[in-house]
């Protein structure tokens, strides 16, 4: 800072950081009293400057002005004194004393933030100089500083006699300067103010910061997204329609009617939490959620429209999906989606971008499915499921997702698949909201076993019919445990069985009412949550899937909030958001409520509820060892960085190992004619493993590796008082 001052043309010599300025500082503010000694101290100052090792002219100039008494202080003074000194030569037509006085008088207000290095006299001068110096335009400040400096100099002169700095003097000087500074409005508005601002960390936002560049994504982008999304969705729908016209027509016709009505309802956007309302709302919310995500600037009206469009799309997708039951191909699914969207769009006459966008999203969703990594063998059934759901209703979609999840469960050992299926199910529900997701889900589904295709088909038909019926019922009903249960069952079951059940459940749910949809949605949410959690765990295990999902996620990410995106690159993660809005939309016939409030409420409400029901009903997943634990242990013993794929392999190996171990243990227990595993069984196992030998009894191992708490349980410990722990 001071360097800038020193850089003043007057003072070519760079003032040393500390010494010279301090030397100069005291002089300016030096009170009159200083002047006398100053002349004498000039000589003394020189040695000071020499001490400072700054042979700048400024210093010399300052020396004349700076009282020698301030030597000690000078050392600590900032370079601003030099600045003053630099100025001095210009105006130095007077004696140093005069100059100093001028400086003191005219010096700008001392900045309260000025470092306390300066002693009273110095500080006074330094304060004014410091703030000014901090400002880049020190030169500019010099002139104005001169004026105040004079005054400060005068003050310094007054106290020049005292070479030692005293806090009281400093404070007094500060007080003097403060009022002076306050009077100097000019100073405030000029360099001092600037310096103050800068010293204070520029609390006042600079002009440049006030730009609107900080605004979030421009609306334009969102509009484009919607268009592309809708276009994609339409394309998907077209494809699907082409593949299965009959089914589509049937389902579409059936769905169209409810969808149309639901659209109207959706517009109304009810905020109910229960199945049908939720579905509609969820869909709406999801869609709206998507929308907001996509475009923050979208208005609620747009959202409502979007939700409607999303619902429509979802329905269309469902229709399409139902059509594709037979094929169960991702492409077909996507086509269905497109067809659905298109069909839906035609029906709903939603010209707004939202439907298009949704279609596009649907397209993306469907399209994303194909790219999904084939890690999941569920293909046809999966695709079928989502298709069905779309055509049938949100419930169907959810059920489909669940089915898919189930399918995936069977396919994959990892629980993630189950979650994924659920997520897929949810995604299917959300499909409308997230065309991209639907595609992803479809992909997932398609990836799953083909076996389920046929089953799924059968189930789909049932579910479709059931869904359709349910849709009609759902609207009117409030709580349907059947469908959610069915969905849950589906989620649990793997493969066709689940589908069948789902279909049955759906049919049963029809009787029950719309509730199943709710629960399905909830389940979907739960599944999603679980799936997400599982997915997170299994993220490593399925890099391919992730990669496949990435494009989907990319698409979806556009709609999903950044945090969701950041949370996981897996699109499934975002599904919950999408599922929720999609769910309500699927329900369609629900009375529409304001989408915005619903979206905010539903996700919160849907999540906790589905979790409880979903986890309890869902197929009990084998508990897994925390991947974090395995990673930590492995990394510790590997003593070198380990790749993610390696971790996955290690996880699989460890799982297999422990599975085999437990199987052996069970065999040993059964061999002994018991049904409870006991120490003897474990000892036998360890003996077979080679850990326990004739030389190494198990007790020694226990003592070596177990903490005291566990050891106490296994090996009796005798304590004083004739006590044995554990007591026999």
């Amino acid at each position, binding site marked *: 800072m001071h360097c800038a001052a020193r850089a003043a043309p007057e003072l070519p010599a760079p003032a040393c950081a500390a010494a010279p300025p301090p030397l100069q500082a005291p002089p300016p503010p030096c009170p009159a009293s200083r002047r006398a000694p100053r002349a004498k101290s000039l000589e003394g100052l020189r040695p000071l400057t020499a001490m400072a090792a700054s042979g700048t002219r400024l210093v010399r100039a300052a020396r004349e002005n700076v009282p020698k008494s301030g030597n000690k202080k000078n050392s600590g003074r900032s370079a601003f004194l030099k600045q003053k000194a630099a100025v001095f030569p210009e105006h130095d037509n007077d004696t140093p004393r005069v100059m100093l006085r001028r400086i003191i008088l005219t010096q700008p207000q001392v900045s309260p933030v000025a470092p306390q290095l300066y002693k009273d006299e110095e500080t006074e001068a330094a304060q004014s100089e410091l703030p000014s110096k901090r400002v880049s335009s020190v030169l500019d400040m010099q002139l104005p500083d001169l004026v105040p400096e004079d005054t400060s100099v005068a003050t310094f002169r007054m106290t020049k006699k005292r070479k030692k700095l005293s806090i009281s003097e400093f404070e007094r000087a500060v007080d003097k300067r403060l009022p002076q500074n306050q009077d100097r409005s000019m100073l405030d508005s000029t360099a001092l103010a600037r310096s103050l601002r800068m010293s204070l960390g520029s609390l006042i936002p600079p002009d440049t910061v006030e730009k609107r560049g900080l605004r979030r994504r421009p609306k334009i982008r969102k509009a484009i997204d919607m268009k592309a999304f809708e276009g994609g969705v339409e394309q998907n729908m077209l494809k699907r329609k082409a593949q299965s016209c009959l089914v589509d027509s049937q389902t579409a016709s059936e769905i169209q009617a409810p969808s149309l009505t639901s659209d109207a309802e959706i517009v109304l956007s009810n905020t109910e939490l229960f199945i049908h309302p939720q579905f509609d709302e969820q869909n709406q919310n999801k869609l709206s959620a998507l929308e907001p995500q996509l475009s923050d600037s979208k208005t609620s009206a747009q959202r409502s429209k979007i939700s409607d469009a999303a619902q429509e799309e979802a329905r269309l997708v469902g229709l399409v999906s139902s059509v594709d039951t037979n094929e169960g191909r991702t492409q077909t699914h996507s086509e269905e989606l497109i067809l659905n969207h298109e069909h839906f769009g035609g029906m709903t006459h939603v010209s707004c971008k939202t439907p298009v966008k949704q279609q596009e999203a649907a397209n993306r969703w469907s399209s994303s499915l194909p790219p999904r990594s084939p890690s999941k063998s569920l293909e046809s059934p999966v695709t079928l499921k989502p298709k069905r759901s779309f055509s049938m209703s949100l419930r169907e979609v959810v059920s489909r997702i669940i089915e898919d999840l189930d399918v995936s469960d069977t396919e994959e050992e990892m629980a993630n698949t189950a979650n994924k299926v659920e997520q897929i199910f949810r995604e299917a529900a959300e499909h409308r909201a997230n065309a991209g997701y639907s595609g992803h889900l479809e992909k997932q589904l398609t990836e799953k076993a083909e076996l389920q295709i046929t089953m799924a088909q059968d189930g789909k038909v049932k579910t479709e019919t059931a869904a359709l019926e349910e849709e009609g019922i759902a609207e009117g009903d409030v709580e349907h445990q059947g469908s959610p249960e069915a969905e849950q069952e589906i989620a649990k079951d793997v493969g066709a069985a689940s589908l069948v059940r789902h279909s049955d459940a759906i049919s049963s749910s029809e009787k029950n009412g719309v509730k199943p949809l709710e629960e399905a949605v909830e389940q979907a949410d739960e599944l999603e949550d679980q799936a997400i959690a599982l997915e997170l765990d299994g993220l490593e295990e399925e890099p391919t899937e992730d990669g496949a999902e990435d494009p989907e996620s990319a698409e979806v990410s556009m709609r999903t909030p950044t945090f969701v995106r950041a949370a996981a690159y897996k699109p499934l993660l975002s599904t919950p958001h999408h599922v929720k809005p999609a769910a309500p939309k699927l329900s369609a016939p629900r009375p529409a409520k304001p989408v915005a409030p619903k979206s905010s409420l539903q996700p919160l409400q849907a999540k906790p509820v589905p979790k409880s029901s979903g986890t309890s009903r869902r197929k009990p997943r084998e508990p897994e060892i925390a991947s974090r634990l395995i990673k930590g242990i492995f990394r510790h013993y590997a003593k070198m960085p380990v790749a993610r794929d390696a971790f996955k392999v290690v996880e699989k190996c460890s799982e297999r190992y422990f599975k085999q171990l437990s199987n052996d243990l069970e*065999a*040993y227990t059964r*061999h*002994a004619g018991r049904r409870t595993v006991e120490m003897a069984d474990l000892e*036998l196992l360890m*003996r*077979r493993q080679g850990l326990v030998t004739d030389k190494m009894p198990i007790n020694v191992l226990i003592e070596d590796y177990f903490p005291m708490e566990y050891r106490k349980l296994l090996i009796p410990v005798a304590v004083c008082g004739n006590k044995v722990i554990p007591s026999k």
Partner: protein
Amino acid sequence: AAAEPRPRLSPQRLRAAVHYAVCGLCQEVAEDKAVQFSKQSLAAIAELTFRQCETFARDLEMFARHAKRSTITTEDVKLLARRSNSLLKYITQKSEELASSNMEQKEKKKKSSASKGGRMHREEEAAVTESEDSNMA
């Protein structure tokens, strides 16, 4: 006669016996697959077999004691062989055959107990034990 060969069953002799058996089996496999076995490989396989037999014996004894028995039975053998599915299936099959044959023999014995008496029993038992041994091997 049964007791005489016992003293000859020292570890070295046992190893030699195993080696001889392994060589014979490997020769059959070589003819079957049109491959040849080097001496070192044969020796390695024989040594491996011998050590594995020791392990098997120890495990079998452990299993029997785990079940609070003092006799090694087919159950122990099955437990030992459960790792390999095919082997387990084979052994189970054989054990079932043995069990059925035993049943038949028991029925026969009952029928002819009056006439034949103990001789049949001994022969049947010997046959049964031999078949069991073959299973174990």
